[in-house]
């Protein structure tokens, strides 16, 4: 798929912006704060229902206004067009519609138009807290498996309710052990599904990632990706061995909950479950966050994203759109060149932001078609292709 056009109002410092895109490479350049990332944010809202920068839509609305609106036109793999409209007014729920006026939930939008994003803070996937890795994995599964996305929302809801009940019990406000037992059952039921799906995802994803890493680095280094739902490597290995069967996950979850029962009541909090899951990235058999150099960690990050693209492409029968925000803050010219060549060979639509156009000039020579956009104070203008005029 590719995005033909986007039109948006009051997003960050953009008053009204309308851009027609190239089905291949689109480059946005301009100084910091000019509104480049906002264009990628708008694309993310139109295809994934939310921004990748903030969780809060009110932060996106342009100052001194109280709403944003956007319209994104997409062409699917089979050449059928689709348009998505998103409207958000501060204090009200976000409204998403398709071209026939039918309202969509964010759940039903996610996955329709797969997108892969690489943004500067994403090295957290390697060095940051487990939540970065969970988000990375959940984002991929959510775009390929609606039932998973649904269960994930359900899980979060159960977790909130259970935590509230635990808190009430711990404060002595409520005697509800029968009820707590039922919430625990529900939580375990949903957790089994989530752990099983994440486990089976990693079984498929890990080899893709390993291959991508080798392809990118051309060296005898190797990286691998593991799922570690339990704090015990033996249990994690047992689950993998058993192909994440329901019974075995259930068994271990139950024993964790029994073990934690007393502490949960003291703390008023659910202490174990998929909301605390982690994934382990290894570089040459050592934890990547401990041993990876700057350069190696960049290669791992690019390999993770490259694997994400391949995974989505294989399982969705539609090519994802790729957003690379401020690439030169993360990658050097060689890596950018390598990444762009790989993605270009896959015939993917790319959106890139950078501060200085000169940075990328040396490698643009290799590209047949691309569009250049200059961004200044929330105003986007398309430039003529300079290498053609030079020739």
């Amino acid at each position, binding site marked *: 798929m590719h995005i033909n056009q986007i039109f948006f109002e009051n997003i960050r410092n953009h008053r009204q912006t309308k851009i027609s895109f190239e089905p291949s490479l689109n480059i946005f350049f301009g100084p910091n704060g000019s509104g480049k990332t906002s264009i990628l944010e708008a694309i993310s809202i139109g295809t994934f229902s939310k921004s990748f920068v903030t969780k809060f839509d009110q932060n996106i609305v342009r100052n001194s206004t109280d709403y944003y609106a956007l319209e994104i036109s997409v062409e699917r793999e089979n050449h059928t067009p689709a348009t998505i409209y998103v409207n958000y007014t501060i204090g009200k729920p976000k409204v998403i519609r398709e071209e026939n006026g039918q309202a969509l939930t964010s759940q039903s939008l996610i996955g329709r138009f797969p997108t892969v994003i690489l943004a500067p803070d994403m090295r957290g996937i390697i060095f940051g807290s487990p939540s970065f890795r969970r988000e990375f994995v959940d984002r991929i599964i959510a775009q390929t498996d609606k039932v998973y996305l649904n269960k994930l929302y359900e899980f979060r809801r159960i977790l909130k*309710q259970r935590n509230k009940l635990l808190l009430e019990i711990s404060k002595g406000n409520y005697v509800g052990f029968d009820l707590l037992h039922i919430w625990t059952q529900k939580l375990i039921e949903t957790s089994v599904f989530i752990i099983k799906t994440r486990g089976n995802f990693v079984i498929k994803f890990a080899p893709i990632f390993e291959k991508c890493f080798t392809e990118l680095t051309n060296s005898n280094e190797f990286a691998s990706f593991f799922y570690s739902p339990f704090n015990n490597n033996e249990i994690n290995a047992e689950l993998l061995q058993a192909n994440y069967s329901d019974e075995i996950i259930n068994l271990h979850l139950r024993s964790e909950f029994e073990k934690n029962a007393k502490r949960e009541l003291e703390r008023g909090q659910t202490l174990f479950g998929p909301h605390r899951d982690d994934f382990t990235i290894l570089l040459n058999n050592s934890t990547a966050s401990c041993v990876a150099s700057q350069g190696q960690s960049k290669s791992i990050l690019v390999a993770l994203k490259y694997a994400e693209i391949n995974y989505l492409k294989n399982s969705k029968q539609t090519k994802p759109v790729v957003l690379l925000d401020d690439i030169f803050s993360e990658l050097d010219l060689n890596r950018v060149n390598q990444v762009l060549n790989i993605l270009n060979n896959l015939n993917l639509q790319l959106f890139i932001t950078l501060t200085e156009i000169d940075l990328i000039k040396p490698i643009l020579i290799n590209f047949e078609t691309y569009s250049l956009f200059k961004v200044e104070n929330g105003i986007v203008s398309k430039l003529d292709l300079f290498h053609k005029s030079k020739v």
Partner: protein
Amino acid sequence: MKFSSKTIEEMIDILSTLPTIGRKSAQRLTLFLLRQPEEFIQKFSETLVKLKKDIKLCSLCFNFTETDPCPICSSPERNKELICVVEQPDDVLAIEKTNQYKGVYHVLHGAINHLDGISVSKLKISELLQRAKTAKEIIFALNPSVEGEVTIHYIVSLLKNYPIKLTRIARGLPIGIEIQYADDATLLNAIENRTEIK
């Protein structure tokens, strides 16, 4: 914008607390009411007072009613041994519209929701247990949310020693939807809860 009259402001304040009514609609309604003849306002305010005074909860099913027991609970044509448990009075209206259900109802007035402070004691659960003693079947028609699910499980756990049939309404495809257009979660649910033919 502020109106010069304090009474108008008060009216707008009151109306805008109603569900789905924003400040603008409240303004429009207030000005509409101002333009109506005296008789209309008289009738309107009387009905409003009567609404609160005359409408009470049925002592059997806890639906809103003017007579106690309510017309459904006192109807000789209704099967009192078949009780359909719902969250809200609106749900009774929805099921009554089908004109097919011949049992009686039990309105819980919500579902267990710790985040909204709805605990077991705020729901009409102990009353349901009383009625269950003389019933043959209880149908659970709660919303398919995690709160609805947990409420069903909780009540079922309390009823486990009753000699009574416990059922729940089916979750599946809406009528008129073609399979290819159904969302994945609904479809999965319909497959998981498939029924045997014959």
